[in-house]
């Protein structure tokens, strides 16, 4: 599933400007507000879904080579967070959907774990 398809299926806004990254293909996703758990359990290269909004979410994703972060519940990232994401070549999406619904949609669409 490409990041563009993820954005469409979650009715999400693309917050970062690096549009060429939207064609990147991903296979796994991980949803959590605890970065400790993301670092311990997420597969490399997964999409990260989170309701937590701080710079450590971006750095955690960067350490795990995650190409995309979806902020759920309509959370809007600050300019600082977006800048950090763009520096790390990470696409940031923001969906009005909650965590459970977002994960369900992506799981049904074929993203596993």
């Amino acid at each position, binding site marked *: 599933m490409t990041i563009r398809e993820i954005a469409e299926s979650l009715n999400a806004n693309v917050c970062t400007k690096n549009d060429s990254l939207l064609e990147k293909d991903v296979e796994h996703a991980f949803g959590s507000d605890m970065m400790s758990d993301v*670092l*311990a359990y997420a597969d490399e290269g997964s999409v990260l879904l989170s309701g937590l909004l*701080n*710079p*450590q*979410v971006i750095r955690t994703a960067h*350490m795990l*080579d995650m190409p995309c972060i979806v902020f759920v519940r309509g959370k809007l990232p600050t300019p600082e967070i977006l800048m950090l994401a763009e520096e790390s070549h990470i696409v940031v999406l923001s969906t009005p959907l909650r965590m459970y619904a977002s994960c369900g949609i992506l799981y049904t669409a074929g993203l596993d774990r």
Partner: protein
Amino acid sequence: MEDLLHYHYDVDGGNFASAGEASVQVKRVLRQMGFPPDLIRRVSIAMYEGEINMVIHAKGGDADVYLSPEQIRVVLKDVGPGIKDVALAMQEGYSTAPDNIRSLGFGAGMGLPNMKRYSDEMTVESTVGVGTTITLVFNAF
């Protein structure tokens, strides 16, 4: 073995927002030097966990990274409160982090075990009231 390169970073303990900057820089250096992606990811995750620990548990410290083609060594040194029972702290789920740290997404007691899992060798030297030094070794082959 001879270390070819040494990088030093000050880890600012007063600023949670900047925690992890040293790990980000190390990741960039390792990529420029052409280390394999899997190795870079192991180093990144383990060092980042250690760097976060220095910020949330120990008011910051020093991070030193030594590179040779065969080996990457990361030394994280702080003069924080120290760890009373290292064996206990190494167990999954053990955490003394306060609630405000948990609301920032950390404090599940997963960091030290994760550092152990992703490194090839890990040593923890810690004295209560003096500080903690953690050495992580990653073999390139």
